[in-house]
């Protein structure tokens, strides 16, 4: 019996490992931004490199999972949905890495007044990602609980929209250079996009759950 389920168990572990990477990626992203705002740039660069390493590890793990799902024709009815979920989760991880890269290259000057708002924004976006990962994990074991987690993720996505809007309004009401205003807008938008990507995963997930309920 153990032999029969060996392949399955190996793949279950790989999927869990992949989701762990996305979840840890969100924590590293948040930690990295905190360090950036505290002006501890060396430590920030270490976090950025960690996130890049996780992104590439996640890529190869995802490809391996996809390959196994196809070559062993596993979960034929749900395979397309599962692959879609893994690929869209990968976009969340990529978006977080890209955002830290932009901070690293452009080194935006964020005023003291805006820093707590940016931290709030990053926290909301990463909470959306964390709940999204929990929802995806739950999809594999307990369909009925997925809905609650999707709702939580969507709540944090809306929160991040509101905070990003607030940042942009404050910035554009200030008497400052347009180039700086635009810079702040773009960075708020980058962080907001992470939550938007998490929302896309949740939308896919909701459809995948409905299909399995049929």
């Amino acid at each position: 019996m153990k032999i029969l389920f060996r392949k399955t168990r190996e793949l279950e572990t790989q999927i869990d490992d992949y989701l762990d990477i996305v979840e840890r990626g969100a924590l590293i992203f948040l930690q990295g931004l905190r360090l950036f705002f505290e002006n501890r740039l060396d430590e920030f660069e270490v976090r950025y490199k960690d996130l890049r390493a996780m992104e590439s590890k996640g890529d190869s793990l995802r490809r391996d999972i996809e390959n196994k799902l196809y070559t062993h024709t596993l979960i034929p009815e749900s395979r397309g949905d599962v692959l879609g979920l893994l690929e869209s989760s990968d976009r969340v991880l990529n978006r977080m890495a890209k955002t830290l890269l932009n901070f690293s290259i452009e080194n935006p000057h964020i005023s003291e007044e805006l820093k707590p708002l940016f931290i709030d924004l990053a926290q909301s976006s990463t909470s959306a990602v964390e709940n999204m990962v929990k929802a995806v994990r739950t999809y594999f074991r307990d369909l009925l609980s997925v809905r609650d987690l999707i709702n939580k993720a969507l709540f944090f996505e809306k929160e991040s929209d509101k905070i990003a809007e607030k940042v942009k309004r404050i910035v554009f009401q200030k008497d400052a250079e347009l180039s700086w205003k635009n810079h702040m807008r773009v960075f708020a938008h980058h962080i907001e996009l992470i939550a938007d990507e998490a929302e896309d995963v949740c939308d896919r997930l909701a459809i995948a759950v409905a299909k399995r309920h049929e």
Partner: protein
Amino acid sequence: MIWFFLLSGIFLGWSLGANDAANIFGTAVSTRMVKFRIAALVASVFVILGAVLGGAGTTETLGELGAINAMGGSFTVALASGLTVAWMTRAKLPVSTSQAIIGGILGWNWFTASPTDFGALSEIISAWIFSPIIAALFAFILSKIIALMIKGIHLHLLRVDQVTRIALILIGAFGAYSLGANNIANVMGVFVPANPFADVHLGNMFNFTGTQQLFLLGGLAISAGIYTYSRKVMVTVGNDLYKLTPLTALVVVLAVALVLFIFASENLQHLLISEGLPPLPLVPVSSSQAVIGAVIGIGLSRGGKGIRYRVMGRIAMGWILTPVAACLLTFILLFFVKNVFEIQVVK
């Protein structure tokens, strides 16, 4: 000449294998949960086992309806039934080998002025009516049980997939055994009274009766149908009527297998009698109609949405149309076989 006569039965067996194996393994293969070569091997082995070990009960009931005692008569009845099935399938009318062969036997009784046992006939007709209803009931109960299990156990999706694959093969094997046991009478039942094979004894232990040899031949014909033609049916026709997920397919196959089994098992019949319960008649029933019953049962377990009730009308139409067409065709063919080819059709 004997082998020529048996050809019509072999043709019926081939067509049963080609069409009805899809009722057992159709969804498993079309959803790629089970590879065709595994499905074909399991189905063939267990259909033959079912036919040889468990085919006696339903054959006896057909014998009660009309004991066709000349090879020419058996040949004509099987040929007329096979042609009826082929023609009605082509015309996209609901058809079942079980119902065609009964019509054929009635046609032989009519032509040869042999008496028809109306007690046996009423048993057969009631089994036709009850088999899809019982399949619906089984499927209703099974789908509720599986839904509760999935809700309670929280197995990983991949683990559910693997368990479903194993169950589809195991339950498919049971389904194939039951199909062989229940439906071999359709293929070879009419040849039993005029059976050309003698019993073979190997020491005191092994006794291979002439009837079992006949059923083995029928089983091999069914296997040939499975290997040569059922793949196409499994992949296309099997999925045209209804879209099943692997898990609902499991419920359908188990419900159908149970129905075929209870209408074929002599042991179950003895058990019911010994417990003072009313026994179920041993009658060849239609696996396709049981599938439709089971699908309706699953629909009802989900609140009855999306059930196409017209399908039930089509089943009832098949109960009347198929035996009447087979009966008439048998009568006409017997006339030609007897008077034109001068072949003995009754002793």
